[in-house]
């Protein structure tokens, strides 16, 4: 471990409009290692890798690549030197084909012009490497599911022959099978001497994949150590500065709950093929299964977004809501924490305060006119309730870290005082500490008589958190698990629809 | 195409040659009835509407009705390619004559060549072309401008005014009549001994626009010694009234309202002259087209006299009507040609139906 580090940063600082994102960071990664970067939301991880990848330039400090000082003016300069990054927010172009995207900036050419045929061949080869033979390189990226997009993104990165490959929460939406593919790939790359910098909030991924770990907190590099040198508990303490004893709050005993929502034979287009379920008062009902089995459509249907849904539904004596407006103002009130906070949950340029109240204008107005005092109170209340770390509530919500943005989304919906909360993978990209707070809050809400329908792509969360779990496969509930029967094997087995035997 | 022939032409009292040098054209005679199209450019003002109505009424006139097999009117707006396209399309459709108000004085070379190739008679009128390759019908625009300016200079001199600002209200930019009138006006004023400062605004030949720009000009410049305006003269009067601007000599077109105002305020200083382009020119042009198709020799440039009236010659019920609305052009008929559709008849009658 004494050879020249491939990436070496010293004294790097960066602030955004007064907010310190990184402070005097020294960081090094060795050639051929898989190096995890850990830290809670807002710790500065993304900022660090953006600096390495040439997306933002540091205010101070310097960077060496294989010993040579470098300063990237833009991402293409970094690419040219073998630094390739998969960003937390995808960098694919939705309206171009998969093949176009994979060879986006340096396509094969004939007579100086892009050679579509060669591009296709190249895309097929790279997709095969990430075991995505099912993806047709001519489809538009916008028609792919999030998990497929992440795989395409990985294929695109591979195609750039990285020396240093950076994955910033690139696996947050991946399902078990794809995660395995990524493991294998990283293993291969390591063999070829490629360095991987890996950011994830999924501790088990970090444990299986990485050789070294660096922990960041509040923009500072706290410590770097080899895998196994520290226990999980110690790592978490380094990250969030305190102990996390139990990640999940205790579940109440199994009990009979009056139903607040039940659907029977819910069908929609080709995505839902007769889903039946009952959600009890005060219950956290988990939804599992491989990505894209209709879970998201189910939540959208219950929230009134989909048209032409068939089947019976009973929500407090009424059918499905016809629109989100009806959903949130009906009886019982329904809320949806949507899939993508950046485009569906938040209005990034608007202030934190404005975002907090967008679902609950009636709480801040009298006769349609905004009451300044009520507005102020509602905003303070929302911030306090989820302990959102904000400087000034008038700052654009864009300036918050991912985790805090997610809290804003949740707080916004709690402000409507919903009876039924639909959650679409609410902890995607959320750090351990915050996750714990969210789970705590979910349980408190449930104990307070709210009901939660909770989809997660992370089985561990379902196991730790849900009172009952339904596993969806191909638009149908294939398995219902309850109490001690909620195990990883059971969920994975049902997800792959491996017969009905337990 | 037409042959250049020696005069005189047919019906000289109607188709008067522009000048002694005017050449004559003759097309091979065709069997009627004919297919005739009108391709108007701009549609935005009263004059053009009155023109279109006159054309349609004239096509029904017993004197020519039987000579017309098909009659179509299109308005293309001010876009040159669209106007050229429409003319060419009518040529392709086998129309015999196309009467048009050109959106620009140049640029018609191609359609002229095509018309000649197909023996189609193309007759620009009102806004005519800068060419002698086609037969055209118009009043003398340069003379109109000069007469306006001379009148105003004479009235100012009579009132003992020899310096000040003169407001010129122009028509739709880029058209030939706007250009020629303006040249005439400015030529005369420049030659005058007085110390005149010209201020010019664009009124698009439209009352409303004119009223607005004149009001704005008064707001900015204070007072004018006189106003010389193309179509939209009602607007000039209205703007003067509204601003409480003293009555001064005004030259304008033949709108009924303008003439009414001159008659009413001539003693308060509104020494007015009203020379209108007649929307009835369209009828003269149509008649000329038919005559040409019948094989008659025609002057290349047909002159229709300027219908001059000023505060000394206005007469209620004869060349204006105090009981009729403001909004039509009084001069419409041209008896020497048998064009007897009067302004009130074509424009005011619907109004009275309404009320």
């Amino acid at each position, binding site marked *: 471990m004494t050879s020249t580090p491939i990436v070496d940063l010293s004294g790097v600082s960066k602030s955004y409009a007064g907010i310190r994102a990184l402070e005097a960071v020294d960081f090094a990664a060795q050639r051929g290692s898989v190096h995890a970067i850990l830290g809670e939301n807002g710790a500065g991880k993304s900022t660090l890798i953006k600096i390495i990848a040439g997306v933002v330039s540091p205010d101070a400090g310097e960077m060496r690549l294989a010993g040579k000082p470098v300063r990237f003016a833009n991402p293409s300069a970094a690419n040219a030197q073998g630094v390739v990054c998969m960003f937390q927010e995808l960098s694919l172009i939705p309206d171009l084909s998969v093949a176009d995207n994979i060879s986006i900036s340096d396509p094969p050419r004939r007579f100086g012009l892009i050679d579509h045929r060669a591009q296709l061949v190249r895309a097929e080869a790279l997709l095969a490497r990430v075991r995505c033979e099912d993806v047709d390189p001519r489809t538009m990226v916008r028609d792919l599911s999030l998990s497929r997009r992440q795989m395409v993104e990985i294929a695109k990165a591979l195609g750039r022959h990285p020396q240093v490959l950076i994955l910033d929460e690139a696996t947050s939406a991946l399902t078990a099978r794809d995660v395995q593919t990524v493991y294998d790939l990283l293993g291969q790359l390591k063999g070829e001497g490629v360095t991987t910098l890996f950011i994830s909030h999924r501790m088990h991924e970090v444990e299986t994949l990485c050789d070294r770990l660096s922990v960041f907190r509040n923009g500072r590099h706290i410590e770097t150590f080899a895998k196994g040198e520290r226990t999980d508990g110690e790592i978490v303490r380094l990250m969030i500065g305190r102990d996390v004893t139990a990640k999940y709050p205790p579940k109440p005993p199994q009990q009979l709950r009056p139903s607040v929502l039940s659907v029977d034979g819910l069908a929609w287009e080709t995505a839902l093929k007769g889903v039946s379920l009952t959600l009890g008062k005060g219950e956290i009902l988990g939804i599992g299964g491989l990505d894209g089995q209709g879970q998201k459509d189910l939540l959208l249907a219950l929230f009134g977004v989909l048209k032409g849904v068939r089947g019976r539904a009973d929500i407090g004596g009424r059918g499905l809501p016809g629109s989100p407006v009806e959903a949130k103002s009906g009886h019982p009130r329904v809320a949806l924490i949507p899939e993508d906070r950046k485009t569906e949950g938040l209005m990034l340029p608007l202030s934190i305060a404005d975002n907090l109240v967008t679902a609950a204008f009636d709480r801040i107005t009298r006769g349609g006119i905004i009451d300044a005092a009520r507005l102020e109170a509602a905003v303070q209340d929302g911030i306090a309730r989820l302990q959102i770390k904000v400087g000034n509530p008038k700052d654009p919500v864009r300036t918050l870290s991912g985790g805090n943005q997610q809290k804003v989304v949740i707080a916004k919906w709690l402000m409507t005082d919903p009876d039924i909360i639909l959650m679409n993978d609410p902890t995607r990209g959320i750090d351990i500490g915050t996750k714990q707070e969210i789970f705590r809050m979910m349980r408190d809400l449930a104990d307070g008589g709210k009901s939660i329908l909770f989809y997660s792509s992370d089985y561990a969360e379902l196991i730790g958190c849900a009172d009952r779990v339904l596993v969806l496969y191909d638009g149908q509930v294939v398995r219902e698990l309850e109490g001690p029967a909620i195990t990883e094997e059971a969920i994975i087995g049902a997800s792959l629809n491996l017969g009905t035997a337990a | 195409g037409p042959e250049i022939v020696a005069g005189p032409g047919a019906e000289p009292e109607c188709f008067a040659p522009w000048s002694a040098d005017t050449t004559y054209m003759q097309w091979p005679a065709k069997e009627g009835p004919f297919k005739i199209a009108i391709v108007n450019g701009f549609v935005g003002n009263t004059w053009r509407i009155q023109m279109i109505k006159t054309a349609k009424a004239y096509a029904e006139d017993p004197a020519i009705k039987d000579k017309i097999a098909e009659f179509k009117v299109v308005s293309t707006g001010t*876009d040159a390619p669209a106007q050229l396209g429409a003319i*060419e399309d009518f040529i392709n459709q086998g129309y015999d004559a196309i009467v048009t108000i050109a959106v620009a004085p*140049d640029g018609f070379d191609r359609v002229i060549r095509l018309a000649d190739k197909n023996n189609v008679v193309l007759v620009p009128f009102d806004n005519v072309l800068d060419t002698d390759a086609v037969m055209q019908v118009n009043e003398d625009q340069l003379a109109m401008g000069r007469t306006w300016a001379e009148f105003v200079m004479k009235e100012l001199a009579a009132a003992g005014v020899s310096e000040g600002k003169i407001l010129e209200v122009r028509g739709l930019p880029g058209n030939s009549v706007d250009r020629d009138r303006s040249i005439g006006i400015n030529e005369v004023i420049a030659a005058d001994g007085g110390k005149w400062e010209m201020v010019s605004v664009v009124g698009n030949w439209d009352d409303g626009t004119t009223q607005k720009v004149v009001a704005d000009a008064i707001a900015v410049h204070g007072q004018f010694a006189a106003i010389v305006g193309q179509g939209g003269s009602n607007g000039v009067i209205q703007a003067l009234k509204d601003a409480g601007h003293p009555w001064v000599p005004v030259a304008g077109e033949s709108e009924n309202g303008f003439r009414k105002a001159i008659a009413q305020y001539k003693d308060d200083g509104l020494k007015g002259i009203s020379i209108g382009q007649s929307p009835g020119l369209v009828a003269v042009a149509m008649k000329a087209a038919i005559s040409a198709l019948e094989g008659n020799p025609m002057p290349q440039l047909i002159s229709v006299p300027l219908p001059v009236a000023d505060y000394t010659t206005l007469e209620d019920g004869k060349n204006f009507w105090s009981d009729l609305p403001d909004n039509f052009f009084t001069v419409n008929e041209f008896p020497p040609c048998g064009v007897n559709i009067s302004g009130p008849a074509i424009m005011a009658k619907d109004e009275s139906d309404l009320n």
Partner: protein
Amino acid sequence: MLRLVNQNRGFAGAVSLFVVLFVIYNILHPRGFSSAVLVQNANESVAIAFVAMAQTVPVLMRGLDLSVGAVMTLSACVASYLLTGSGLDISLGILATLAVGTAFGLLNGLIVVYGRLQPIIATLATGAVAIGLALLLRPLPGGDVDGDLGWAMTNTVWDFADTYGLADGGEAWWLAPFANIPVPLILLIGVALLVWLPFKRTVTGRTIYAIGSAEGAAYVSGLPINRAKLAAFTLAGFFSACAGLYLALQTSTGNADTVQAGAYTLNSIAAVVLGGTALAGGIGGAIASIVGALILRVISFYFRILDIEPLLQPLIEGLVLLIAVSIGAWRTFSVKNRLELFR
């Protein structure tokens, strides 16, 4: 094939609409399906088609260029001075005209890129500047464009050859298959084929699509954002100059017609949308906008065939346009996931 249609649904719809309208027009026309009619139609459509192409490029990267009509007018005014004299003079004049429009487009690009202004407002302002310059050049319409050139460029290939005594005055056997094709159509298609299609197949061209689709993603993917933006506006300037050049040839004059400039700019947006290019960027193409422009034009052709009250013509034209753009709305009603309405 099905995929291509599906991925270019707007374009496919536009082509079908145009074909239907055009065929019916020709059936109704006494001399339908003749080269004379085609020549006339082509002449009338070339300028707006070029302006529509110009508008497409910025729109693809989610910016509007409100100066295209003005740049066309400016170019036409320049051309009206230069398209005369010897063959060499004229050739240089053509190049100079194209250069002026292209340079103006580049200026737009520089302002948008380095001034970091929204294209729509930056070009609203530069459009005024272009019109001002055009008015300085041509306070009155005028000019002296070479007559033969005008004739040759606005007719069939045969006439072209005939005018310049090429290919045995147009009678050469090898010219026969093309003899009846309108020169304006060849110009239009030639520019599209030789400039637009190759450009689309460069990284810069692709970057324009990428910017319209997801600018942030394009940037982090290492695409040349600034170069693409400059290229987009420059290309828009070039196509606008082509329109101006043609306009000058067609009318043998330059006319600093503000109203016409404004109308062409607005119609170019309509053409772009009718062709199926998304105003939100990322989807569509210049070829599609040519079709859009043709649809706009063919609507007005009908007024010369059918007997329609002249004073109602503008109203009907508007209604047809409104209906045409609303036809796409059936998709809105068949959308099953309302989120798809908000992309």
